[in-house]
């Protein structure tokens, strides 16, 4: 699945970042790399973007961009 389909309040592990060039680079620079853990904090009032916690800080990411991030759920 991708980060687009993630559910608020759950934890996920990043499996892969698709895309290339600036788009992918920027996502990875922010710390979303293979194996990193993502907590889905909340969704903006209008449904987009999504607020996630990664590497102990808060990041907001649009659903369209989140689609490039493949994840799998971690059960805690």
């Amino acid at each position: 699945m991708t980060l687009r389909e993630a559910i608020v309040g759950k934890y996920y592990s990043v499996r892969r970042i698709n895309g290339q060039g600036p788009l992918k680079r920027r996502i990875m620079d922010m710390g979303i790399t293979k194996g990193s853990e993502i907590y889905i904090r909340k969704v903006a009032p209008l449904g987009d973007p999504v607020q996630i916690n990664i590497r102990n800080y808060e990041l907001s990411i649009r659903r369209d961009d989140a689609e490039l991030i493949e994840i799998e759920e971690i059960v805690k």
Partner: protein
Amino acid sequence: MSYTIALAGNPNSGKTTLFNALTGSHQYVGNWPGVTVEKKTGEYKKDTSIFFTDLPGIYSLSPYTLEEVVSRDYLLNEKPDAIINVVDASNIERNLYLTTQLLELGIPTVLALNMMDVVRKNKDRIDVAKLERDLGCKIVEISALKNENIDTLVNEAVRLSQKPAQLSFSEGVENFLSEIETMVPGLKSNPANRFLVVKLFELDSKIMDHYQLDKGEREKLQAIADRADAMYDDDTEGIITDERYTNITAIVGGAVKKGQTGLSTSDKIDKIVTNRFLALPIFIAIMTCIYYIAIGVVGGPVTDWVNDSLFGGVISESATAFLEGMAVAPWLVSLIVDGIIGGVGGVLGFLPIIATLFLLISILEDVGYMARIAFILDKIFRRFGLSGKSFIPILIGTGCSVPGIIGTRTIENDNDRRMTIAVAAFMPCGAKTEIIAMFAAVLGGAFWYGPLWYFGGIVAVIITGIMLKKTKRFHGDPAPFVMELPQYHFPSIVNCLKATWTRCKAFIVKAGTVILLCTVAIWVLQNISVHGEFVSWESDSVDSLLSFIGKKIAWIFAPLGFGEWKAAVATVLGLVAKEVVVGTYGVVAGLGEVGADDPGLVPLIQQNFNTVSILAFMFFNQLTIPCFAAMGAIRSEMNDNKWFLFTVGYQIAFSYTIALMIYQFGRVLVLNQPATVWTGIAFVILIGYIYFLFRPNKYKDLRTVQVRSVKE
């Protein structure tokens, strides 16, 4: 001998606060990512032979955003003597990612561990000695805000002379890197060789161009990258980023112990402030408050006092008395009192409103709310070809367009940024509110009158966004919207006041330069006749140069309903600065120097305007090119003549056609006057707008992103 130290670090890590503490200068600080958009240099307070360069906040040294390129070019080409890498200790993992890149530049580097107070409050523990060993560079714990340990930091940076140690990548990657190192001549001897090798492995085109690699060498690099790609199932940029973070995770895991888990105070605040249901009402309440305070509480009374009592009364009267006492020629008294004091004073009268607005916005920024606004509003703005980050420049633009336009630098996507620059000036700025006030008395105090201009500005932004985003010009590479949401903190009064002062300074400078020159020019034009004689301005019967020119150009505005030459002159001069519109109109109409609420204006306007032409006049002035200062800002921010001319051309065409439609349709529909050729032209224009608004967007689904196949 001078010594230069570069301050580098992530956005919002406290670099500018540190820079202010070091240099005592008035740099602009806020609590949202990306406040510093240019590098700034300052002298050390305690030793003038030490210079600091404050680089824009960056997450990486890749060549993709403006800030990254500015920082990277500076570090590679200007070769500072040392780097102070400011690291937000409360967000250490992501901050160290940039550190791993900076360490590769071969420049002596000290790591300033900032915001340790937050770390302590969260009961986290950082083993600094271990971190220092693992990273191979000197670390100093500081608090930039509280001025702690700053001198130690500078002493360390000056004392350092050796290159920092390098972190190694995995064996496979190291092999590829050494292959590249032997391939490119001159690379080994370059002090930044480690950085350059990694960038060549990532196929960074700017570095390849720098080394003037020929086709064969580029192909070799590509072959290496392809081999790495096959081995790691990722492109080389991805491999390097992954390995950097793997290193950091290991280092941080050993040196940092998390204290309390669960929600911090900031998270708890955020739970309410950006709550699904409460976020928008809270946002609207905050904005309403800001406008009520700036325009209602401070604006009215203080501005009236400054305009009427200070500049209109005390200063002009005493200046007149003083100059007459000195037996100065009457024309010079007129130039100084009516021209300069009247013109410049009229502008400075707006300073209280603008200063209040800027102060309140600075507080929002410092607290950390600005990033939340972008988060809340992104979805709305995206529909109009803008991003959530566009809100901030547009909001600042309601004070003054110039800082608003400069503030667009934080928007990563070039198209979003250009679009925001183009629309930021549609909002009524401080100067335009004066034009609004001029007609307020004529139209009566209808409740819709004030909000109409803000609403009109927003509609103009939306229309422009929808039309332009469907054009080829605004279709480009997509950039992701990933934005850090910083922790809330209490606003620092010093930072907020400094930010307010920096922004007000730009406004005051404008009053002292562009507007000063402009008022002198108007005075000269209206007091010199076409025969080259000095004439004392009384009414439009005098053959002054100004009325001569005005009558020549008045026809341009006739279809908009204000072809009467006084309004035409005021409008044209308003292209230089909107502040002069009201003053000019009063002066050329023979009323002398007037404020927007001068009772003499009412009958005059009623004689020359009707309700419809007032609306046309005001919308034209609100939507057209704002002023010379803003045009200068657009030119420098677009950094491209074609884009600059496009923007200016668009603003002129847009404002002219909108005003034309308002006047022509209003004339027929409201005033029941017969239709003319111009009504027909306005109708054709309307159909054109409808087409551009509703035509399908053929670039809509085009994302230049290739999704690679997944290998299991």
